[in-house]
């Protein structure tokens, strides 16, 4: 599989906040070759929904999130955010249009400038956008810090190294929230945290989602975490979409062979799936020369000649479940 297509896009839904179509991101790999990081991926996000994006290293999930934020330049595609196409924009125009999208990164410690005080870090967005200074912004910074569970007089005066990893992630979330964003793109936000802290942050995100009316893209390799936070899940493999489905549907009845292999690999799972070793074989092909047709075919036990010749398109196999596979 690993195919393209738009069957999963909800074209008539007036609640769609962000719609990405046929996004292609390629990185130069020297000698005129390119890494096909994201190859024609489409997503849409309904207001208030959390889209989980899962897949293994090299599947393009992080690049997808960064490209939507325009932190990576896409080769082609459209990124419609509230009826504005962000794709061709640059400079200040882009900054204005993208203001309502914010991003949270994997490593909270590296995401904070170590020399700056927490108050200044959180106030950064307000300063950039000009409505800084004065008691209004101070009050807002305090309120946001309290909302992420960092209340207290002295918090704002301290610097990142005085905080633990979990607390740093709270600061990062506060910094994003101060901008009053509509969409939050989270790239592995809890992967660097211990289990007990991870739970704190996941609960916090659920609370903030309601309180601030957030719509989220949650990129993660951890399937249990994604199941917990997502309304809809997209499975990616080697720059392509394998499957998009409502969370429970995906975990109860994964239809794409790669989704099945991925779920069967979760240690200690009790899902009704055969051993992962029977569902996937071999190694990840090079993203410089991805396989023809379905990109998963070289590792798929169900692959046939058709899979090499023709790329499968996403199609609906059950209500709310879209799969790009000739055999699913």
């Amino acid at each position: 599989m690993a195919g393209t297509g738009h069957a999963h896009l909800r074209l008539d839904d007036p609640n769609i906040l962000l719609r990405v179509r046929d996004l292609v991101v390629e990185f130069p790999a020297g000698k005129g070759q390119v890494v096909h990081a994201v190859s024609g991926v489409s997503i849409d996000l309904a207001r208030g929904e959390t889209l989980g994006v899962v897949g293994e290293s090299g599947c393009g999930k992080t690049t997808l999130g960064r490209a939507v934020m325009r932190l990576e330049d896409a080769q082609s595609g459209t990124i419609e955010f509230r009826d504005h196409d962000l794709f061709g924009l640059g400079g200040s125009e882009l900054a204005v249009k993208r203001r309502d999208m914010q991003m949270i990164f994997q490593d909270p410690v590296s995401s904070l400038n170590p020399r700056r005080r927490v108050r200044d870090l959180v106030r950064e967005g307000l300063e950039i956008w000009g409505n800084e200074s004065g008691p209004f912004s101070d009050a807002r910074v305090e309120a946001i810090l309290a909302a992420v569970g960092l209340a207290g007089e002295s918090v704002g005066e301290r610097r990142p190294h005085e905080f633990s990893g979990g607390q740093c992630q709270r600061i990062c979330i506060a910094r994003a929230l101060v901008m009053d964003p509509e969409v939050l793109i989270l790239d592995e936000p809890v992967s660097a945290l211990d289990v007990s802290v991870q739970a704190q942050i996941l609960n916090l995100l659920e609370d903030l989602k309601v309180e601030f009316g957030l719509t989220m893209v949650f990129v993660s390799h951890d399937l249990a975490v994604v199941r917990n936070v997502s309304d809809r899940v997209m499975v990616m493999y080697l720059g392509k979409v394998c499957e998009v489905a409502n969370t429970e549907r995906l975990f109860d009845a994964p239809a794409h062979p790669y989704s099945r292999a991925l779920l069967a690999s979760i240690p200690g799972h009790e899902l009704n799936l055969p051993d992962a070793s029977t569902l996937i074989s071999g190694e990840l092909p090079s993203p410089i020369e991805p396989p023809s047709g379905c990109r998963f075919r070289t590792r798929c036990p169900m692959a046939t000649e058709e899979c090499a010749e023709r790329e499968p398109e996403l199609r609906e196999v059950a209500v709310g479940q879209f799969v790009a596979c000739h055999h699913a």
Partner: protein
Amino acid sequence: MAVVDAPTSRTGDRAPGFGRPSMGFIFWLSVTWILLVVLAAALADVVPLRDPDALGVRTGEIERFETPGKNAWFGGDGQGRDLFAQVIHGARPAMVLSAAVTSIGGSLGVLVGVVAGYFRGRTDSVIMGVAEIMFAFPAIILLFAVSAVWGMTMAILIPAMAILAVPGYARIVRGVTIALAERDFVDAARAMGASRSRVVIKELLPLVALPAIAFGFLGFGLVIATEGALAFLGLGLEQRTWGSLIAGGQGLIREAPHLALIPATAMFLTIMAFNYVGDGIRELIDPRPIVVGRKRKADGHDPAISAASDALLSIRDLTTSFPTAGGTVTAVDGVSLDVRTGRSVGIVGESGSGKTMLLRSITGAFPVLGVQRTGRVVVDGTDLLTASPAQRSTMLGTEIGIVSQNPLTALNPVRTVGSQLIEVMRVHREISKAAARARAIESLAQVGIPQPDQRVDMYPHQLSGGMRQRVTIALALANEPRLLLADEPTTALDVTIQDQILRLLSALCEQRDMALVLVTHDLQVVRGWTDDVAVMYGGQIVEAGPTAAVFDDPQHQYTQALLASTPRLDLRPHSRLAAIEGQPPSLVAPPPGCRFAARCTIADDRCRAEDPMPVQIRDREFRCWYPGTGKVT
């Protein structure tokens, strides 16, 4: 405690106390000296000194070539001028010149370096190309040319030397900037809408300022020395400087050695002082965590894991501690554990729980110095803590195999997979190269590497992450150990590869009747792949037993809390997780009573005062005053 699980990449939820490293005597002596020189430069006209130009031969106050003494502290020169006054007055041009050159050259260099390092690409190539050319050109010759054309005054020398200083700063700052620009906070600022110039000014400049200032102090010394060299060659400033004093005194080094030596000493001490202060500031740049607390007395407590007679690995009352700036960290505190042949034991815990140090305490390989171990670590009848080094290394090569978290660092990047396997085999046994090679191919096949006869001649970088981890397993198994120690062996791997590696380890255990100790932060890995589990918290094993039993019916409140905080596949999406509030205890000064009491929802005064007695019920054990559902005792 920040150091305990340093090799893993996870950050726990604890905020260690931070402090500055103490700077030491020489640093403060240097600071004092610099302050004295600065005072001398500033106040030379104000303090009651003799006139440096007054000729002693006329006034009769100082004789020709008077030696240093009570009358004139530094003696007099050929015309009886007071050398002390001359040296004090000479401090001013030294300070003015180096301050001006360093601040002008430094600021320009920092700006150029940040721009080159942040924008990269063509900007970078052009800037660094010019810098390289300037580096290649000998500075002193350039200064000769400048002085030949325009003469040598401050107004000429300052800009000339400042321009020459720019590439040095630029190069250092560019390096720092490149490293910083890869960190996420730059992306975070961009995502928030910050312009590139704002990123440079607000995010990067403050961070490169400190390294630049450190370099600036070194530069200060260099400017003073360069001026000295110019003066020595007769091309110095037209006014009186230390350099001109030395140049003037050098011809009389036999008759009146103090004339050259005293200003030279002043110059030498000043340059040294700037260098020391620069080095000191450089050490300040990284605020290192220092755990604050007091030393805690050793606790000879004997916990109650029973001595199974057939245990291959038997750990008894193991305590591992090491000194840090904040006090002695007791990373492993009175741990006892038995691992029988053919069993796999998962040691699970969060960052700072001591799980990695426990594993390292078995092999004795530590990432820090000064580690002390007490207790017993017996493998197949040999106590590794009291064994001779030779005995220990034989045990490590043959009885015990080790698989680490990062296969890339465990393998030598410049040697083929095969040569590393062959070496490991030939160190511990008599075997011909050809036979060892055949065995190497066989062992690669055993760990599931396809085409082992080709892969044997490959280098680690030619293999995927999963294949590399298979190679480290093959290396660990090369001498057929009976005990395999694995530290987060799949943490760096993708989930489908993790499944393959854990499946392999589990199969090998069974086939070879090998014991496996698997250290991990991942409860699900333990649940899916080990027979027994030991849960660690605050350096202690708080609960141990068969994996299925512990996961189905956890007794210790921490185990329960840990399981409840883990996202599960059988919960509905958006289920609230039971997070554990608070932070793990300090390992320098752990609280009395139960280590988990401060974060436990049902802890009472007893928990906070008394160490829970270890309880053993059949094959399970735990140390908790209110096990199971709580206070029904």
